[in-house]
């Protein structure tokens, strides 16, 4: 396997507050990589850094091309879809319009055909197609956000805490569908999660972040046996 995304020595800061202190990590072609860590460890910032949403230093290479310093819009057009924290729903627009925006960079006709595939994953979106997105439940908004990202036909999908604020049953449902999506869409995934158990069950490789640094990394199956996650999360 070759690395689709290769990140070396990534630093990031909000104003004067430095959040990331030199991360090295990779996402393999067709693989799922998880970034774990307690709140405030810098997971969300890492995703934002990849998308050019914060000031960074270091190398971010996507499919052999350096993307650091590029505008978010241009990075997106290279095939990076980002489901941001808080899901980034266009609350005032309808579900349909949200999905059309997902396919904004592609010809309209192609997009409409893709809508049906999304309904295949998330039938509930079809029922809610004409509704204002702000009226959706949290779980439905997460489904919409994932669909919106997939409609870009991305090479790399960045998922920021898809379990956030959702009841365990819905989390399970969404991750079940994500597994199908991964196989059927042929997309590589970088997943940020606080829920370590579910993330490690889904990912094949994982990194654990602590205050802006990677403390351990390895195959997900190894990491899930490691005590340091528990320590890191529960503050021993």
């Amino acid at each position, binding site marked *: 396997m070759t690395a689709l995304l290769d990140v070396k020595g990534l630093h990031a800061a909000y104003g004067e507050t430095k959040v990331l202190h030199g991360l090295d990590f990779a996402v393999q072609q067709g693989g799922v990589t998880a970034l774990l860590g307690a709140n405030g460890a810098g997971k969300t910032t890492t995703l934002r850094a990849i*998308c050019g*949403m914060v000031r960074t230093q270091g190398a971010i290479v996507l499919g052999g091309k350096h993307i650091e310093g590029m*505008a*978010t*819009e241009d990075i*997106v*057009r290279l095939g990076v*879809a*980002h489901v*941001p924290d808080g899901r*980034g*729903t*266009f*609350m*005032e*627009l309808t579900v349909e*319009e949200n999905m*059309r*925006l*997902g396919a*904004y*960079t592609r010809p*309209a006709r192609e997009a409409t055909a893709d809508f049906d595939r999304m309904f295949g994953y998330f039938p509930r979106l079809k029922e809610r197609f004409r509704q204002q997105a702000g009226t959706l439940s949290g779980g439905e908004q997460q489904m919409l956000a994932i669909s*919106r990202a997939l409609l*870009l036909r991305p090479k790399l999908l960045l998922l920021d805490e898809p379990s956030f604020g959702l009841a365990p049953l819905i989390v399970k449902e969404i991750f079940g569908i994500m597994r199908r999506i991964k196989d059927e869409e042929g997309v590589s995934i970088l997943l940020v999660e606080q829920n370590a158990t579910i993330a490690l069950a889904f990912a094949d490789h994982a990194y654990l972040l602590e205050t802006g640094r990677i403390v351990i990394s390895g195959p997900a199956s190894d990491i899930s046996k490691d005590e340091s996650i528990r320590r890191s999360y529960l503050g021993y």
Partner: protein
Amino acid sequence: MEGFIHQVISGIATGGIYASVALALVMIYQATHHVNFAQGEMATFSTYITLTLINIGLPYWVAFLGAVAISFVIGVAIERLLMRPVANAPVLTSVGVFVGLLLIVNSVTGWMFDYTIKQFPSPFSGKPMLGGFLSGHELGSTGVTLAVLISVYLFFKHTRLGLAMRAAAFNPVSSRLVGVRVGWMLALGWGLAAAIGSVAGCMVAPIVFLDPNMMSGILLYAFAGALLGGIDSPLGAVLGGFMVGVIENLGGAYVVGTELKLTLALIIIISVLTLKPSGLMGRKVYSRV
């Protein structure tokens, strides 16, 4: 009774002008959360451009469309040059820049076209219509205004670009993440607002005559209309604009007299802001601090 109906109908006719300017204000407000104090002055300038094009011999509608196009370009240019740098500045800064813009456009207008009051032609006949309730110009300008408002609505509702512009206004961060070039959407919004203002200017000039301060009162009514309808609702702004037109006409005729019409706008603004700040159709936002 007939007098009353007459006041209502001609209120609707002027209300259309307010509705257009209110829509222009709301478009910029939605995208940037700034109120363009120079909107009226920009529209006046556009009207002078139309007059200049007519005076060099172009047919009315060619001059009209030419001015709309030029205004669009000016709007885009202003956004790129002046507004971009203060996009995230404090309110005082943005108010300063907008008031500065108002003064500059006003002075440039006076300097280029002098301060004498000028007649402005109407493309419509001046004969009374609809049984004498409306002049031909009032009827025609209401038609033009409605045509503009409907096309703006269709543009935003049914085109890809319109959708992207709305998305950029509502949620710039998410818009970037789906590949929308948010900066250009804002510039387009400014262009459109300037173009709409230019139409409003051309429609009102035959009635109030053209001078560099032609729109200063109209801007106030448009503010009132935008607030009445809800400053974040384009549809609300349009309805608010029409309502203010009617209120102004009725109030002027039966309540406060014509001398205090502008004060009426102030009263509407204060009443809306204190009694129902979100306006009639504005969004209610649940804020989680």
